């Protein structure tokens, strides 16, 4: 047995033990390497891939929305945002001071916006400005090299070229909500996506959205992009052509804004449709808002201002609000009277200025009375007593059936969210609603549109279009959808005949033409040179008369003022366009709403080459109509 020199140790003892220990340790390492690199290799390689390959979605550009003549109403433009990556900032103080000067803002404000993120958050860009204007962009770009960690980035931003002019129709964008993410048809959306939240932007979301692409990017441990591995380009969303006519929409807008200096614009709504096919040419709701505010994420101050506004500018009054129709309802009653044989063209009633029924007295708006009145005069001068007299004979249920055939009391099918149905009362409805029978006295009020009846402005336009054509047509807003796969025309609107024969309707139309065109009519304000216009005014009482009795109109608080209605179509003998105008607290149908309808009709026929452009009238053209004229 050999010994380690001078140590008295047998080498085959301790040294071999040591060698064996070494061998054992390295054998364990080899086994472990085998386990990791051979057995688990695939799984760990996949984990490595997940570490470094990031799949990014490339958002498609949202499609344009254009009017019937191709004028762009909403498009997606490139906005430049200014980002700061905190980890890349050198000399923070200098950078922020320089940025503040370039952006004309306070350095402290910028510092506060970026904050002091820690950990991995330091590598994430912080958005300092969402939409740089050209000057700011040019300044920042010029000094970019002196500003490490500062970068500009293009991002899509929805832009509504005419601002608030058709805000309620076009709608708004917003970040997808949690409850939406859970719904089936948002299955391929993710948190943080911007989607159409209201109006057509919401209804047409599937068409406008396009198809997103994607790419795989290799990133390093800090999340920086190193290399693009592959990419599928996104597909731009469809271009949607609306039925709206921007010129007419503007005319309606101008009419609502044509007020004496210092007064707020009128409130209410105007709807114009093509009588022949239901195309919606105008849909305006006032007060309105700027949908651009929502595009980049609305700030809380603007949001509070909009939702806290007592007049609720976010509401689309054209379809979401219904109001008592007042005398605009009389033409429907007239059609029903004729159809049910209660009256003919020559039937007369005597109007002494009031009507006694069931121990109560119902007044005509004209205190001194209209005298002997036939249907033509009753419509032209809006005689209440005529309709009281014969309405009672007709009965509420026959009236209701015919009114419904004009599209009243039901959604028009316009396809926008939140459409109100309005209300056409009947004895069955009252029983259901109040558990009470219908009293004939209620028919008296209903005959002049002051009972339970409620219309939305679009229902007024649609029902008047039905008087004009004899067909109840479903209004539509979208003409066609153009995508890379082709043009998809929307099917023509459904229409069905109303429950009134054409000769009876012709009689009603004649009366309506007299309203505008003949002396003594209540709608003279809607005359358009060169074109015969048919129409009907309406005033809906907001509070009982005794609240405002004896007050000068201008002294009545706005909230207590009557609503003004005006429905019209033209040309009277071959109707093309029907208009429904509602002016909230506008006092009188004739003076409050009539001029709005006039502006829309005039513009329409001017474009058709049927009437000369209107002369600008200087000075305040407004005349106070005598109180109570309807």
């Amino acid at each position: 047995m050999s010994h380690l020199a001078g140590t008295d140790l047998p080498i085959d003892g301790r040294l071999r033990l040591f060698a064996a220990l070494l061998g054992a340790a390295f054998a364990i390492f080899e086994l472990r390497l085998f386990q990791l690199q051979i057995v688990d290799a695939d799984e760990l390689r996949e984990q490595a891939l997940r570490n470094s390959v990031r799949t990014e979605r490339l958002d498609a550009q949202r499609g344009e929305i254009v009017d019937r003549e191709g004028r762009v109403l909403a498009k997606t433009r490139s906005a430049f945002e200014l980002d700061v990556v905190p980890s890349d900032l050198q000399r923070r103080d200098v950078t922020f001071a320089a940025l503040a000067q370039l952006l004309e803002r306070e350095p402290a404000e910028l510092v506060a916006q970026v904050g002091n993120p820690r950990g991995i958050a330091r590598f994430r860009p912080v958005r300092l400005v969402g939409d740089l204007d050209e000057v700011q962009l040019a300044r920042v770009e010029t000094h970019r090299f002196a500003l490490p960690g500062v970068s500009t980035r293009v991002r899509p931003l929805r832009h509504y070229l005419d601002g608030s002019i058709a805000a309620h129709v076009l709608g708004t964008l917003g970040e997808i909500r949690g409850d939406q993410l859970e719904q089936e048809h948002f299955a391929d959306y993710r948190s943080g996506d911007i989607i159409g939240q209201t109006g057509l932007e919401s209804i047409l979301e599937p068409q406008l959205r396009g198809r997103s692409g994607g790419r795989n990017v290799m990133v390093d441990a800090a999340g920086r992009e190193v290399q693009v591995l592959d990419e599928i380009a996104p597909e731009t969303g469809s271009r949607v052509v609306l039925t709206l006519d921007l010129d007419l929409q503007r005319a309606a807008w101008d009419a609502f804004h044509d007020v004496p200096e210092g007064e707020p614009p009128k409130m209410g709504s105007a709807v114009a449709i093509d009588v022949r096919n239901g195309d919606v040419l105008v849909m305006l709701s006032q007060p309105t808002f700027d949908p651009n505010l929502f595009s980049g994420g609305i700030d809380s101050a603007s949001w509070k201002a909009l939702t806290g506004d007592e007049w609720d500018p976010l509401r689309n009054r054209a379809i979401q609000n219904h109001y008592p129709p007042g005398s605009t309802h009389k033409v429907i009653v007239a059609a029903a009277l004729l159809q049910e044989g209660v009256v003919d063209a020559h039937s007369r009633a005597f109007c002494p200025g009031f009507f006694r029924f069931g121990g109560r007295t119902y007044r005509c708006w004209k205190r001194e009375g209209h005298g002997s009145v036939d249907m033509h005069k009753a419509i032209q001068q809006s005689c209440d007593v005529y309709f009281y007299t014969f309405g009672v004979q007709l009965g509420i249920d026959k009236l209701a059936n015919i009114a419904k055939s004009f599209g009243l009391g039901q959604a028009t099918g316009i396809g926008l969210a939140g459409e109100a149905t309005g209300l056409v009362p009947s004895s069955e409805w009252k029983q259901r609603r109040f558990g009470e029978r219908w009293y004939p006295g209620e028919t008296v009020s209903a005959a002049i549109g002051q009972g339970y009846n409620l219309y939305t402005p679009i229902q007024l336009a649609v029902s008047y279009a039905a008087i004009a054509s004899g067909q109840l047509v479903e209004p539509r807003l979208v003409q066609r959808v153009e995508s890379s796969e082709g043009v998809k025309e929307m099917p023509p609107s459904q229409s069905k005949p109303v429950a009134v024969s054409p000769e009876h309707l012709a009689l009603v139309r004649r009366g309506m033409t007299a309203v505008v065109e003949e002396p003594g009519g209540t709608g003279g304000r809607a005359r358009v040179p060169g074109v015969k216009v048919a129409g009907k005014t309406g005033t809906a009482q907001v509070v009982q008369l005794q609240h405002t009795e004896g007050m000068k109109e201008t002294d009545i608080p706005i909230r207590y003022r009557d609503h003004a209605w005006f429905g019209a179509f033209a040309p009277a003998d071959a109707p093309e366009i029907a208009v429904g105008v509602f002016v909230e607290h506008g006092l009188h149908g004739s003076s409050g709403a009539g001029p709005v309808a006039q502006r829309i009709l005039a513009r329409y026929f001017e474009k058709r080459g049927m009437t000369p452009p209107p002369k600008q009238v200087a000075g305040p053209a407004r005349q106070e109509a005598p109180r109570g004229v309807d």
Partner: protein
Amino acid sequence: MASIDRRVFQHFDWLLFALVWSVVAIGLANLFSATHAGAEGRLPTEFKRQLIAVAIGASAMVVVLLIDYRRLERWAPALYVGALLLTASTLVLAPVTRGNRSWLVYGSLSLQPAEFAKIGLVLMMARYFHRHPPGRLNRLRDLFGPGLILAGPVGLILLQHDLGVAVLTLLIGATYLLFVRIPARAWVVIGAAALGALAGLWTFGFKDHQRKRILDFLDPTRDPLASGYQAIQSRIAVGSGGLTGQGYLDGPQTQLQFLPTQHSDFAFSVLAEEWGFIGCSVLLMLYLSVLVWGLVVANNSKDGFGSMLAIGVVGMLFWPAVINVAMVLGLAPVIGVPLPLISYGGTQVLANLIALALLMNVSMRRYIF
């Protein structure tokens, strides 16, 4: 310097020389891969510094080879005390980096004297065991002398708050326990003392993050983003190397810098990712060959000092290598111990090359009396 016997060069240990320089070459190539991603086309700074350390190490190796190691037995106490003084000087001169004072910095030069303290320790231990052959040490109290020698450097390193290196130094000294003849009772006492020390360390010695590392080792998913992160990323890098590796300079984990301290403590996982099972096995075999050859040198040495010196050098390489590889492979907690000759670190490379030169020195003089 005394004239050098011609026979010395006839018996030069070319095998050991080749093994060592193969490992060094692998280390340099690996370091380049681990650092070039961040260097943007220039030669990485760490790589350049390591290259300089290797060059200095090569020169030191020549100097060490020229000196007959038996002469070093006489010089051992002086070298030991000198190394201790150098180590102690850090307590006064060194700036605090990463919570400890173990670096001497002069301009862009920095030195970790603890690495040299290990050499001093090995020389001193070899001298002690040469004079008191371990085969005759058969009582616990016989270990008092070597214990005192060991206590010097370990104590100083503890004062620097460099717990990892202190434990490592302790283990290097403890290597000699393999060779003493003490009764079972004594082993029980040593075992109990070790356990006691461990408990003491856990309670008083470890900082919170060190305790956390050990807990994270026992359950890496405890906190996958903190110290567990290193273990997980290292496992992924090693495993994704597969049989043949992702290719040199092509390991995604490495090149995208998912591995923390991939050039220093986790250098082995870079190698594992880029060279795979085959590459790892080659390096491990080279290591094992160096270590086993060291034992052969110890066996063949003609005097006790040479044997004990060789055993000390083996211990000096063995412990950090085993701890480092075990850590990279997820068999041990994350402890900041570099892999000798592979990890980035100039002092480590220099000290290990000097130690290996001592081994060659013993080997080439095995026929000289």
